[in-house]
């Protein structure tokens, strides 16, 4: 099979840029620098796995509509899966965040990785909050009537009405998950492009 690249073409240029930025062996590497051996690395991938479970259980909840889980024990169980995967997700993400902080993992041109992480964190908080107010039960009545004062005080409440179930549900199941997924994708790609940050160099000999 012969294959010739067409020169001076938008498509070719874009492909070359992609491949230069993230060649397959960098996207899916089979080795890592030797310093990549610590329990802390588990939390990034655990956050990613938990996000997958959150999305999958959310999709199951969506199948039969927003009232289903109030009336069906199967639905309620799916809701429990969704809740607990969210708790695991946040736990893992917060440990990941502090881990990356104490590794100063923004070093070596990785500031954007850190920043996409922070924005994902904030987006996830908003996503979880809209989930709580979309539950259509006592919790959502209380949380929404309390939270409205904070959001109204900033002026945003005029456009982001936490008492409007339809609006909150749309944000919870479409806009915010979409944002979280796109941001997470960007974050993980940035990690692959830059490689894993090396430890601080310590010139001093350590006495054990």
């Amino acid at each position, binding site marked *: 099979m012969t294959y010739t690249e067409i020169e001076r073409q938008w498509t070719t240029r874009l492909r070359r840029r992609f491949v230069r930025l993230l060649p397959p062996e960098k996207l899916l590497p089979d080795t890592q620098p030797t310093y*990549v051996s610590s329990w802390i690395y588990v939390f990034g991938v655990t956050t990613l796995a938990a996000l997958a479970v959150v999305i999958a259980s959310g999709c199951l909840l969506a199948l039969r509509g927003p009232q289903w889980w109030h009336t069906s024990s199967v639905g309620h169980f799916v809701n429990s899966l969704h809740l607990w995967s969210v708790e695991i997700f946040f736990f893992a993400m917060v440990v990941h965040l502090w881990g990356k902080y104490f590794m100063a993992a923004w070093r070596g041109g990785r500031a954007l990785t*850190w920043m996409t992480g*922070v924005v994902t964190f904030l987006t996830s908080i908003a996503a979880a909050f809209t989930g709580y107010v979309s539950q259509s039960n*006592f919790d959502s009545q209380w949380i929404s009537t309390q939270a409205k004062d904070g959001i109204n005080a900033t002026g945003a*409440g005029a456009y982001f009405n936490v008492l409007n179930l339809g609006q909150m549900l749309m944000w919870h199941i479409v806009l915010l998950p979409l944002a979280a997924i796109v941001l997470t994708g960007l974050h993980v790609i940035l990690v692959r492009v830059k490689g894993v940050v090396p430890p601080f160099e310590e010139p001093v000999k350590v006495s054990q």
Partner: protein
Amino acid sequence: MSKRFRPDVDVAPWKGGHSPYDIIKEGTIALVVVGLLTLILAVVFGSPDELAITIKTWSNATPLDFAATALSELNLTSGTAQYGAPYNNASTGQQLGPLQLAKWVGARIPINTVNDFVIDPLKSLPAQPDLSTGLKQWSSASSATRSHWVSSYTKASAKMTFVNGQVTVTASDVGPLPVLINNLTEMARSGALDQALVTQAGFYTTDFTLPLLFLADGSYLASLADHQHLTGDQWGMMNETGNYPGQAWLWLYTFWYQIPPFNASGNGDVLVWGLMMALSVVLLLVPFIPGLRSIPRKTRIYRVIWREHYQSVAKE
């Protein structure tokens, strides 16, 4: 042309070795473990689903609280009536220093508590002689007459009673108010008010702004929340009913509400929000903030994280 090496910003290229690392296998294992853990937690602990309350349950549980709240919508003393933006222009609302953020945006979700909570729902009831007369009397009265009726009724309302399904206030010169308040309470106790408040926007609706604000204006919702340890001074927002972790990640946001000046200020909400936004920006910009970005290097916690690496370096 050599730039100075900044230890909190730059890294030296890695000259050490590489070892096999199967990220796809790691990811698969993580997915299976998280899936199983979720399953176990869901089976063991389940999830809370405390039924939503209704205006019907509220007005049957505490009819006088309901009637007093209805009156507060008429005499404009309720939380919603005095709110300011985005519901009305009754007050400036909260301010962040000189910034009147809410007021500048304006009353974009306009609510007239007299009409939206009392008069319009009553108009939707099937005609009954005394109610129709009362509503006619109300709509043809001047606003001065209305205020006079409302204030006479309000003065006498301290002795409001609820006997045999009727709200009674002994007072004179109150126009149709006794009829209006009593009918609204009956309407609420039948469940018709719940429906009237959501259907104001037409047949299909997903907007519960009106019934939620009405509920929040009364004290029944808050008393239930208090039982469930959900109020603000009990770290409210981040909890949920039952013994569930809730939104534990809101701990810092909720924390500010427990301490001065936030818990004592009329501008508490906007102060907390302003602070949290500023802190979020700080978190976002950590890699660029001198001092903050040096803490990891100086505390040397990284030596615990990369323990194996430093041990092998030490051996060389």
